[in-house]
């Protein structure tokens, strides 16, 4: 297998694994940019993954090939509503946002497994019938070199993820809404003085993060795992969180980091069938994203500036 063939093999897998990470990381960007730390991304992905599979199994006969896409919508709505819990706790109840996020993670896994056992009477769901399939993108796939690498063997969900990342960048940096959202995260009191409703902005941001993480989870469960059990989402949410930090709280940066983590994940999964890579013990590939994040944070990518008010509840009238 020559180098080019390895790339043709690896890059599509990497992009496939990156899609859920990209969406969830973008969700994290929205939440943290508004000043709410969201450790609960993992749990929100779990909810999305479960709803995706549940919707898919229930409505596969009704919607046919469209089912996975409808399931994404359902997952977005349900995870968005679920994230309200985090918003209420961290904005209105002034809870410690990290603790509330931990509670969200525990709660999501518990509720979803509870429902799986209640509905299906066993520890995991059946495999979904209608799943996302790889496809070629018309015209683009014919480009030499780039075609086989990026466009021949790709999930449309990956295209969606990259599209949303670009959209998020435009929204956050080139619209009044984005400016307000970032202002609330940097200096809520100043924003409040200028007539921005801090609580409302934060609620919206957390719900966006919930919706996006939900889509991410549903993509993962309908293209990669294809069923839902206790270990379906096992660290992807935290990896997305890492991608967000690695990307310096910027949508495009987060996307880049997520793609990179996608490569790391792809390597740890298909690496055993690749020359050179298979010589490396798989544990190093498994821990690579986490170690890289720690190194990145320790200053190897330069100073990463978290939004100033991130993690601090805003209390009106308090200096």
């Amino acid at each position, binding site marked *: 297998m020559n180098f080019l063939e390895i790339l043709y093999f690896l890059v599509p897998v990497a992009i496939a694994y990156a899609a859920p990470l990209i969406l969830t990381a973008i969700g994290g960007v929205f939440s943290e940019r508004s000043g709410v730390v969201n*450790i609960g991304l993992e749990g929100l992905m779990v909810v999305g993954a479960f709803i995706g599979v549940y919707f898919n199994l229930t409505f596969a006969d009704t919607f046919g090939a469209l089912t996975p896409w409808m399931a994404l919508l359902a997952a977005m709505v349900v995870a968005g509503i679920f994230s309200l*819990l985090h918003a209420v*706790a961290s904005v*209105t*109840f*002034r*809870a*410690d946002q*990290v*603790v*509330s996020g*931990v*509670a*969200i*993670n*525990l*709660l999501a*896994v*518990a*509720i979803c*497994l*509870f429902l799986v*056992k*209640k509905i299906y009477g066993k520890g995991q769901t059946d495999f979904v019938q209608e799943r996302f399939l790889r496809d070629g993108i018309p015209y683009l796939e014919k480009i030499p070199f780039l075609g086989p690498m990026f466009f021949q063997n790709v999930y449309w969900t990956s295209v969606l993820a990259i599209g949303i990342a670009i959209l998020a960048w435009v929204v956050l940096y080139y619209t009044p809404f984005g400016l307000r959202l970032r202002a609330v995260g940097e200096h809520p009191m100043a924003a409040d003085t200028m007539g921005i409703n801090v609580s409302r902005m934060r609620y919206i941001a957390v719900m966006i993060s919930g919706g996006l993480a939900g889509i991410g989870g549903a993509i993962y469960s309908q293209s990669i795992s294809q069923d839902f059990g*206790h*270990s379906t989402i*096992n*660290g992807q949410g*935290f990896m997305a*969180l*890492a991608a967000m*930090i690695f990307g310096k709280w910027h949508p495009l940066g987060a996307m880049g980091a997520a793609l990179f983590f996608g490569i790391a994940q792809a390597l740890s999964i298909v690496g055993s069938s690749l020359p050179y890579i298979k010589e490396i*013990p*798989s*544990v190093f590939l*498994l*821990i690579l994203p*986490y*170690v890289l*994040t*720690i190194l990145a*944070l*320790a*200053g190897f990518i330069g100073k990463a500036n*978290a939004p100033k008010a991130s993690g601090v509840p805003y209390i009106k009238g308090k200096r």
Partner: protein
Amino acid sequence: MSNRIINLLVPVISVILGLLVGAIVMYVSGYDPIEGYAALWDGIFGDAYTIGETIRQITPYILAGLAVAFAFRTGLFNIGVEGQLIVGWFAAAYVGIAVDLPKFIHLPLAILAAAAAGALWGFIPGLLKARFKVHEVIVTIMMNYVALHTSNALIRTISNGGDNSGPIHPSASLRSEFLENMTDFSRLHYGILIALAMVLVMWLILEKTTKGFELKSVGLNQHASEYAGMNVNKNIILAMSISGAFAGLGGAMEALGTFEFASVKGGFTGIGFDGIAVALLGANTPLGVIFGAALFGSLKYGATNMPNAANIPEEIVSIIIAIIIFFVASGYVIRLFIERLSKKKGAK
């Protein structure tokens, strides 16, 4: 109402609300809450065996709770207890298997190895926090995954590709015939004594030593502590290491007492994350941690009886625990509610 009573009331109300929500969830999903809670009660206190197993389950919860609480008192949030516990588990099992020594050396050595491994896993985020101002929450989360994958790889290495390290030597075991006989042959082991001793150790460190005073002071106000001549960075590193050592001991309980081996894990044990709940409920005090651990350990163990006795998925208890954390974290609202209530009474 005095502040002290309110501080006590917040966790109590949270637990009641959590159980209430649990009952509602059971009722809405078509189960009988009374039957469910009866099964839970039987699973905790049913007979001598279940009581023994419940206490066994409480043991690592105490240590995980102490780990989180100790870090909290120094102003640090150690989400890495899970990872520190996993490396402690592996270290203890490894020492238990690899060497052959008389019991009075072997057992302490295995326990110390676990504490040292946990301390190392806490030292790294502490160092990064002190040296590079990296937030410990993110680093400890990442360290959890590194711990999980690394310990799995190490277990595979020492067992030549297997999933289980094999049993530890009896000379490193915490097993207690006396406690087993007393509890109808449950897996209750001497670890509970170690856990309770550590509660005392934490209390002594925090309340009776200069270092403990410094640690608490750094937790309350870093700038003031620095101005008073304390080395804030050193204290951060020390606090994370001690916290990690407690967590590592929690792993030793599983390695040397409950299971007497280490095995490849598909995911986290959950003990470390529940430790956050334990510490929060116990208001980060050593004594409070015992109560928090007793509650959550009992709930977790009792839950295993629910599918058999009442046909209810045991995850209901995880839901209840998550709700309790949620309410304890949102203590502000409960406080507000209590204050309003007591004011109304005062007006009458």
